[in-house]
């Protein structure tokens, strides 16, 4: 085993342990509250991820188990099977088995596992037979009883699906690890820079950033004092200190950034493996792999990319025969590109395959119940249907894709990173997926506004525009609150001080500034006293003790060293055009 493989596998084990822990929690919550589809979907996603990674790093046994587990979960989701106690037991035992496997693999990376009994059980459960109680309660390894035979098959199937997820995941992980390895160590490949590097704990980097932020603030204070000081030496030293401080700040901000290349390399591997399995011929091309982005963003980008890339091979690229008939080269082409554009990272996955048929998508969506039969969708709207939950156009369930979970996961994951994903396609010519992401989650462009004596930060990405409305533009209405008329549009208007539960005597609205933003698909406006400025701010999480106040996504330390809260405007107005009910302090209920 090469060092690289070793690192990949170890990386997988770490990640898988986390996935398992998450899955277990979701299972338990599901048991407490069986009417929680989101928990079930979460488990499904976790199983899917685990399957992929395990297969990718070559843990076949685990891949097999997770694959079957996923199949079983899907049957439950479709309602073919009931999520009753025995089923839950079975699923939890699969979870336990995977954990046991992980422990085994930690001790010995070449360990093999016999999960025949468990797999049999999964198979039996999938055939709808209620598992005999003995089999359900006995540990999977001991299921050699004749009655357990059928269950064993079932369980085996379950196990397979679990294993598939695991492998996929391991592969992803492997690839990301590989990339990390190439990025952070002197590497024989020509592409990697031959700089020496060390690994640093991310927590220490964050701590460093905290102190640097403080240094900048202190430096500002010092500079102001130095100006009024008579000593030329103090002034010039302070000036130099300022320059050095700026350098330190720039450098330390860059510490979190890593090149995207490792992730791209992992995609290359996935394209190769997937194409091999499906008998496709694919040329993989990457552009802009040196583009840097925040490490935490990169980590969470990997899963969605894997799904899109697999889909491109499976659904996008046609088999060589069809390509030939269509007058194309027999080799399909998949291109992965990354670039920075206007402070965002843009990743495109382009294939020259068959593209998508808008009519087919519409039909399928109606069949699947994702779309109502009367809905009128434009072609480009129809293409976005692939991101809907439970939408998959492939009939056959394959290892590669076609379970109808992939694209839904892609969208969720990317939205969680405050990014967007879109697809463009031309029938017969291919498709392009375009992902836009912020370069980092740690720093945002913030608009700093004033409301009374307090300052707040609004992420600039949420602001559509800001206007100073004239008095005639604001119409009060007893039942609908205030309405702002802007270029013929009527927009519900809120006052920030009221939203925040303040009772501040009403001021002249025409002194105030209305900030337009979108919440749940509708445009709203919020009235603030003033805009103080626009700055890059470093997001600081709020403590758990206030994290439940959804109206604030965090805080930022402003130039004078005081923290300001970052507003989550869509949470403040709750997305409705009703007057928001005054928020009750949540603590008072529990304190």
């Amino acid at each position, binding site marked *: 085993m090469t060092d690289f493989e070793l690192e990949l596998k170890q990386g997988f084990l770490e990640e898988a342990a986390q996935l398992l822990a998450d899955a277990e929690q979701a299972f338990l919550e599901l048991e407490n509250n069986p009417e929680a589809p989101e928990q079930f979907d979460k488990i499904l996603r976790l199983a899917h991820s685990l399957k992929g990674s395990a297969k990718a790093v070559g843990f076949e046994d685990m891949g097999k188990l997770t694959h079957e587990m996923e199949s079983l979960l899907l049957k439950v989701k479709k309602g073919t099977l009931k999520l009753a106690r025995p089923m839950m037991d079975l699923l939890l035992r699969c979870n336990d088995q995977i954990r046991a496997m992980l422990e085994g693999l930690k001790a010995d990376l070449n360990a093999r596992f016999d999960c025949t009994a468990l797999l049999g059980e999964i198979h039996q459960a999938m055939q709808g037979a209620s598992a005999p109680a003995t089999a359900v309660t006995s540990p999977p390894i001991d299921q050699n009883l004749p009655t357990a035979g059928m269950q064993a098959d079932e369980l085996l199937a379950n196990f397979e699906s679990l294993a598939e997820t695991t492998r996929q995941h391991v592969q992803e992980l492997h690839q990301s690890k590989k990339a990390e390895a190439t990025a952070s160590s002197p590497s024989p490949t020509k592409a990697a820079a031959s700089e020496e590097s060390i690994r640093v704990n991310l927590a220490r980097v964050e701590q460093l950033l905290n102190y640097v932020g403080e240094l900048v603030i202190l430096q500002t204070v010092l500079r102001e004092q130095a100006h009024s000081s008579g000593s030329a030496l103090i002034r010039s030293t302070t000036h130099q200190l300022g320059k050095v401080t700026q350098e330190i700040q720039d450098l330390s901000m860059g510490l979190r950034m890593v090149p995207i290349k490792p992730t791209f390399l992992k995609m290359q591997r996935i394209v190769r493996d997937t194409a091999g399995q499906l008998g496709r011929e694919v040329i993989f091309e990457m552009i802009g792999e040196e583009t840097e982005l925040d490490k935490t963003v990169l980590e969470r980008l990997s899963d969605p990319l894997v799904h899109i890339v697999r889909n491109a091979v499976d659904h996008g690229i046609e088999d060589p025969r069809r390509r030939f008939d269509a007058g194309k080269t027999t080799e399909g082409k998949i291109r992965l590109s990354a670039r920075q554009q206007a402070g965002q990272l843009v990743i495109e996955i382009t294939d020259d395959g068959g593209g998508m048929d808008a009519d087919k998508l519409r039909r399928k969506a109606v069949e699947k119940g994702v779309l109502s039969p009367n809905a009128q969708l434009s072609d480009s709207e129809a293409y976005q249907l692939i991101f809907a939950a439970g939408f998959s156009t492939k009939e056959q369930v394959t290892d590669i894709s076609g379970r109808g979970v992939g694209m839904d996961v892609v969208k969720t994951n990317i939205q969680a990173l405050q990014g967007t994903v879109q697809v463009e396609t031309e029938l017969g010519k291919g498709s392009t997926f375009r992902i836009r992401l912020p370069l980092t989650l740690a720093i945002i462009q913030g608009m700093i506004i004033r409301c009374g004596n307090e300052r707040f930060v609004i992420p600039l990405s949420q602001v559509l525009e800001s206007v100073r409305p004239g008095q005639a533009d604001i119409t009060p209405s007893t039942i609908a609150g205030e309405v702002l008329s802007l270029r013929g549009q009527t927009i519900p208007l809120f006052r920030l001080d009221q939203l925040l539960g303040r009772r501040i005597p009403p001021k002249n609205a025409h002194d105030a500034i209305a900030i337009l933003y979108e919440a749940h698909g509708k445009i709203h406006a919020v009235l603030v006293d003033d805009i103080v400025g626009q700055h890059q701010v470093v997001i600081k999480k709020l403590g758990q003790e206030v994290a439940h*106040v959804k109206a604030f996504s965090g805080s930022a330390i402003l130039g004078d060293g005081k923290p300001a809260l970052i507003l989550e405007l869509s949470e403040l107005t709750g997305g409705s055009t009703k007057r928001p009910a005054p928020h009750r302090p949540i603590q008072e209920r529990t304190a």
Partner: protein
Amino acid sequence: MSRKHQARAEDRFLRFSMGKEDFAMPLLQVREVIAVPEVTPVPFTPSHFLGVMNLRGQVISVFDLRKKFGITPNESVEKAVIICDLAPLCIGMLVDSINSVLSPTPEQLSENPEIQTSLGKDLITHVHTENQKLTLIIDIAKALSVEDRILAAKAA
């Protein structure tokens, strides 16, 4: 998780005053003591939540423990904020004044005192008596019902 106090009765405590009363907390939970900082108020929080402050680049919540306990503040003394390290939480607590570090002998401490409080069970872990002066040793996490609040956050 709160620490078990019984096992380390010889531990030391930080004694502080609120109003006319003396309290103490385990010294191990004290990260530092600072003068009252500027705080940014946070809407939708109860009145004993003062707001958030900047502690050398870290944003920390500050509570007014006197308000939480319903104690009339002693206006004549200089106030202080105790920065408590209650992993994973790090919070500040406003009190009237910091007195001393207590290193009680086992005889001075009585455990599991039978004291009724309106502020939740097990809030007072020990009572320290010295020269007929009582000091209540409190569990800060429980005092702020931090656990309840996290649960509430999860449920929301």
